[in-house]
């Protein structure tokens, strides 16, 4: 029996299940005890107690740093960074500590740490509350990164992340928290690194993740009306990513477009595009197209923000250029 849940409640579900299943799982972050700024941890403190659902001061570096220490001691902390922009305060702990501990210590440490980040724009929250910074972390060995666009997927990837013995960033698009969808009753673990083909198609492979999944799917519907048959792959896992599935699709469609909400320049789309071109150079009819936010800080005024960020409409008009 599947349930219908809002995205934020699917997060809560995953956290509750994980805490039920394993007493070493605990949550910490700003306001998480009161349910979180976006309601994703509602009810957890009542259920699991203040010891395991911890409100913190505004101290991102301590939030992540304490989590690293706790993880090295055998706990499975789930830290929340309210907006990914704020992870800037905690970069040392994420990148120089969490990511490298195991390696620096010759494989003797395990850091089973999950960092949930609200991510991205379309909130009219301007330049310091709208960033999608996954490419920073994809560049850092030792980290894994997942993201999801539907309630079912976030439940899956978040639980997978918590079970993973490595530090994993879980990116939750802020603009999707209220979207409702089906969530399967049971969870079965999958090892991080899988993607999901959200739509089968023959003409072009659209690769995306996070917030733009919904935009891409909408674009694919529109394009279908113009006889352009899109395959849509939601990476779900950005690091590592499922190259095999993507390449097999591109070998078949001979065209690829990568779409993300992060800035286009030096976004993770560049990695995907470069990889596809390395491995499917002969099969490609055209260069891999990259669609991302324009290279400006995210502006406040809605009309400008909608212009800067990729939308379904924009994706349609860009993809059409290939045909």
């Amino acid at each position, binding site marked *: 029996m599947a349930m219908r849940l809002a995205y934020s409640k699917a997060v809560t579900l995953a956290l509750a299940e994980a805490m039920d299943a394993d007493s070493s799982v605990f949550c910490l972050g700003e306001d998480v005890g009161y349910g979180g700024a976006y309601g994703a941890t509602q009810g957890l403190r009542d259920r699991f107690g203040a010891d395991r659902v911890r409100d913190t001061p505004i101290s991102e570096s301590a939030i992540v740093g304490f989590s690293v220490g706790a993880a090295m001691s055998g706990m499975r902390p789930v830290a929340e960074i309210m907006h990914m922009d704020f992870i800037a305060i905690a970069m040392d702990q994420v990148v120089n500590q969490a990511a490298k501990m195991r390696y620096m210590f010759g494989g003797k440490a395990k850091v089973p740490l999950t960092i949930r980040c609200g991510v991205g724009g379309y909130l009219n929250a301007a330049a310091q509350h709208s960033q999608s910074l996954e490419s920073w972390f994809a560049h850092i060995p030792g980290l894994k990164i997942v993201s999801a666009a539907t309630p079912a997927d976030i439940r899956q990837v978040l639980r997978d992340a918590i079970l993973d013995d490595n530090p994993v960033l879980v990116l939750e698009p802020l603009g999707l928290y209220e979207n409702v969808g089906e969530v399967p009753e049971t969870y079965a673990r999958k090892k991080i690194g899988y993607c999901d083909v959200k739509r089968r198609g023959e003409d072009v492979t659209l690769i995306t993740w996070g917030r733009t999944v919904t935009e891409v799917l909408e674009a694919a519907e529109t394009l279908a009306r113009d006889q352009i048959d899109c395959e849509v792959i939601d990476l779900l896992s950005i690091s590592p990513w499922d190259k095999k599935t993507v390449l097999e699709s591109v070998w078949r469609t001979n065209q690829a477009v990568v779409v993300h909400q992060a800035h286009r320049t030096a976004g993770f789309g560049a990695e995907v595009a470069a990889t596809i071109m390395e491995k499917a150079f002969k099969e490609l009819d055209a260069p891999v197209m990259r669609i991302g936010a324009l290279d400006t800080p995210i502006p406040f*005024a809605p009309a400008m923000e909608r212009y800067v960020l990729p939308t379904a409409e924009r994706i349609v008009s860009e993809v059409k250029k290939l045909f």
Partner: protein
Amino acid sequence: MAVSNEGDILKMYRQMVLIRVAEETLLRLFESAEMPGFIHSYIGEEATGVGVCQALEVSDVITSTHRGHGHVIAKGCDLNHFFAELYGRSNGTCKGKGGSMHVADLDIGVFGANGIVGGGVPIAAGVALAASIRKERRVSVAFMGDGATDIGPFHETLNLAAVWNLPVVFVVENNGFADFIRVSDHQKIDRISKRADAYGMKGVTVDGNDVEAVFIAATEAVRAARRGEGPTLLECVTYRWRGHFEGDPQPYRTQDEVEEWKLKDPLKAAEKRLEALGLAVQADFDAIRKEAIARVESAVEFARASPHVKPEDALSDVYTDMEVEGWQ
């Protein structure tokens, strides 16, 4: 401590009323979805921003926070362009690029509201560093919340500002909460101003709802800074009447608690004082409020009539010398 110039109280009262009315108006506009983004209301905390800014000169600089409307208006930001910014219009103070969390007006020393907790703190100190190197008389003020005093850059900044003896005042608006978290749950000390001791800096706590007390303490701190005596940490104890942001369900406190604090309304307190001093009577207060309403309404009209931004406006102002590419 010397009483402030009595005329100042009236002036500050006027400012507080203006901020209150502006904020009340904003809430209505926001509720009716006329205004995009997030709103963090300053209602209840007016005495702090006003008392501090009254101690400053135009060439002095403030950095502000996500809860910045009061600071910005108190420092003298033009209301028309302020409202236009909140509407995201092209003649807003930031051409619609900043919005509520980034209102700025460098010409009058508003080096910006800031969406990152503690973000403006080192920046204000950097302004003071520039003043110190150039031997200018400029003083800067970093506004911050109680919550901001827990974040790393606060610590780095206060330490270095003390070591370099910079002309900066760190104003902590202790409004009882950091987001949903009570001060007593995010730090274990009874006075945030105690943190000054960790830096060999002067620390002062005042009633942040008493505009005169804030003004006097701020004046003292600003004078000390200007005289080359270095920074002060000034804690103003006040209370946030509204939720953290508009829409906050506020499970973390009772309405009773809020009502209790409303009895300490900084505007009412100033009215009492003005009456006691024989400087004004209820009719004056009514007139001042009416005047404020008129100013705010006209600013809202200005904003509503302001030109909408063009999507492509987004491409400018990234660099001083390069345009960014738009969609082809």
